[in-house]
């Protein structure tokens, strides 16, 4: 019986390959992390996609939109396998995804071998994806990790008067990229980063690091995320830590702020930056938060949309807008569709987004501070918005190229580059 079942599964899969593709249908493949450490972010990405699909009534440019999802586990291997299945087996026309950084680079490479498909990045934020050897048919409507800290450096020096800071971050590419963005701006504004501490991703015990944190600095930048961020807050409060803190884009997001325990009270007042703020008085943003909250019951969603939810929602809206404008015409290797995407100025809930010549987003960034709502919830409130943040990070292209890519040691802290 089991063998029959398995045989049926196998046969079904192989036969589906031959199914003819109807002309009045456009297939979109979605890659999202539905297992492993980033599952909650992947699930919110799916919610963003579902809201956009519902809003458009699964139709765009006079054609029916069909979505096929594939689960990944945040490893590039799984992203490639998923993309292959969606592109080569399900024959999708457009692929949206993935969620995390290394996956994005792998999909960018894969997109070069599939010129007939148009790829939209989901929410992955590695700088290399579009900055080095970009792919003709890969579009990214979200900013990279370095852009996500744009504006924070100046804010720290000018408003907060933090002249000397130390940095503590996880030892992999995303925190490098974030610190890259912060260092360039903060050091040019006259700040100094005196020491950097790197901890492995998934660190449970911060005891020895907390003991080593210097006292003679104005604040400590924290480039942690998820469980690591929660663990750090708990242990730092138990150790009686008093230093002022600065957060990376995922240090004080909803996954951390909605966790249980009193230690997160340390987060109140922490400045941070990212591509969105939980509380922002822009009507478009508030309409999006309301739509998100009404679309799912409270136990099946976050308090407000996460940045993956917003990113996937934006991607689908970009696809729908362009398809509507060109009447769903994907002929001639998506020529009209790609030209439409490249020229699009997306009026997204988190600010206007357009693409540069590498098909990388130039968008709006938010400086935020954590505040406590009357009901005790902690949220990120927008204190400042920075429009038109590009991958050049305010430098001229030649200088920007010379600095290169983020690493543990790059860039150095200098007042001019």
């Amino acid at each position, binding site marked *: 019986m*089991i*063998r029959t079942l*398995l045989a049926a*599964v*196998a046969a*079904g*899969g*192989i036969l589906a*390959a*031959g199914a003819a593709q109807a002309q009045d249908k456009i297939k979109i493949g979605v890659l999202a992390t*539905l*297992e492993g450490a980033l599952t909650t972010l992947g*699930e919110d990405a799916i919610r963003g996609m579902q809201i956009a699909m519902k809003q458009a009534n699964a139709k765009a440019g006079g054609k029916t939109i069909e979505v*096929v*999802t*594939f*689960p990944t*586990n*945040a*490893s*590039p*291997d*799984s992203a*490639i*396998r998923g993309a*292959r*299945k969606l592109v*080569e*087996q399900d024959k999708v026309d457009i692929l949206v995804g993935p969620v995390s*950084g*290394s996956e994005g*680079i*792998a999909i960018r*490479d*894969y997109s070069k071998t599939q010129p007939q498909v148009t790829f939209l990045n989901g929410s992955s934020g*590695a700088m290399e994806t579009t900055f*080095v*050897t970009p792919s003709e048919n890969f579009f990214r409507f979200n900013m990279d990790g370095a852009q996500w800290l744009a504006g924070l450096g100046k804010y720290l020096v000018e408003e907060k008067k933090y002249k000397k800071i130390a940095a503590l971050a996880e*030892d*992999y*590419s995303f925190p490098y990229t974030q610190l890259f963005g912060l260092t360039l701006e903060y050091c040019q504004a006259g700040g100094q980063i005196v020491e950097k501490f790197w901890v*492995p*991703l998934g660190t449970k015990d911060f005891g020895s690091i907390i003991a080593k944190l210097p006292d003679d600095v104005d604040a400590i930048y924290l480039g942690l995320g998820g469980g690591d961020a929660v663990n750090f807050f708990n242990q730092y409060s138990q150790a009686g830590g008093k230093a002022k803190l600065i957060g990376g884009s995922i240090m004080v997001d909803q996954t951390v702020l909605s966790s249980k325990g009193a230690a997160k009270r340390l987060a109140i007042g922490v400045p941070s930056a990212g591509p969105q703020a939980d509380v922002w008085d822009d009507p478009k943003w508030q309409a999006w938060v309301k739509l998100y909250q009404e679309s799912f019951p409270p136990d099946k969603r976050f308090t407000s949309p996460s940045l993956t939810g917003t990113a996937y929602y934006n991607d689908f809206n970009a696809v729908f807008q362009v398809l509507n404008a060109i009447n769903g015409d994907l002929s001639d290797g998506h020529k009209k569709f790609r030209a439409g995407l490249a020229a699009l100025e997306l009026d997204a809930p988190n600010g206007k987004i357009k693409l540069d010549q590498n098909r990388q987003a130039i968008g709006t960034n938010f400086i935020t501070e954590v505040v406590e709502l009357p009901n005790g919830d902690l949220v990120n409130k927008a204190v400042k918005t920075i429009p038109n943040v590009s991958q050049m990070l305010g430098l001229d292209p030649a200088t920007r190229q010379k600095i290169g890519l983020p*690493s*543990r040691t790059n860039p150095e802290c200098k007042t001019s580059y």
Partner: protein
Amino acid sequence: MAVEASRTSGILPASAPAPTAASSLPRYPALWLLALFLLILPAFGSDFVLIQLFGWTFILGMIALSLMFLGGYGGMVSLVQMTVAGCAGYMVAIFGTSAVAEISLGWPWWLAVVVAIVIATLFGTLSGALSVRTEGIYTIMITLAIASAFFYFTLQNYSIFNGFSGFNAVRVPQVFGIDWRAAVPFYYLTLFWAVIAYLAVVYVSRSPFGLALQGTRDNARRMEALGFNVTAHRIAAYAFASVIAAVAGVLLVWHGGQISPGTAGVGPVVDILIIAVAGGMSRPIGPFIGALIYVLLRTFALDVMEAVGLDGKRFQLLVGVGFLLIVLFSPDGVLGLWQRWHRRFLAPAAPPARGGVR
């Protein structure tokens, strides 16, 4: 007999027949039909079926085959085989070319591949040397420890292994004017090496060395009394299995075009054990059957769940239940099911097989 009992009960389920070399003869018509099917598959299979289903099956099957060789003929369940494959994949990326130009040395592909296989084989042999003096669960523990250590080392070492991001844009070379990255050539490449590995295991299992190895599995003490160096035999078995895993590792890095710590993380390491057990540890074809089931489940579980109206997010449930059912109904994997079915309907005259060691 105490040694024998502890060994078989620790490694293979008691009812599973221990593999014997003679049973691997390709005398069944099914095997010839299978060979014909695999040879002409590119005539009607899509690129996806060729690379993503069968290419991946052959690669995982080879890695599981190296475990089957150690576990089935040598009585040593080694969880380090996926790590050996990962090590070979990393070496190809480090000595050959990748997008991480500051680390990759850019040697010609054939040199990089040979060096990768040699280094991975040394690594596997060394791991074997560390673990062969242990039995059963302790072998599993030691090899799992080596596998985890390798995973965390690659995750945190940036000067050689490039940490979390690993290496991307590792390309299959173009040789003899053929683009081996294209679907049909890559399919035949993986098929070729899978067949070579299969035949090598069949051959070695019937050679004096293979028979002696099966002797050490069944009664190490008696073999020692007969003058065989049990430890040396076991280490040699590790070396042989490592070569197979290393070749598969080279194909694996070419298949994905990249390698990162997650490729040989603890999850994939355990997956190889699941593949070998679900397929059947008694014959070299078992791991390939297990790999095919694994690949099909991993690829289509979400679609199947959604097709029957269940929440697609719970696709792991189907994967888990699938393997649970196989192991529950047949302790010797799919092979065991096949053998029982074969016995009942096709060869009723044959005497029922005895459990344990023949």
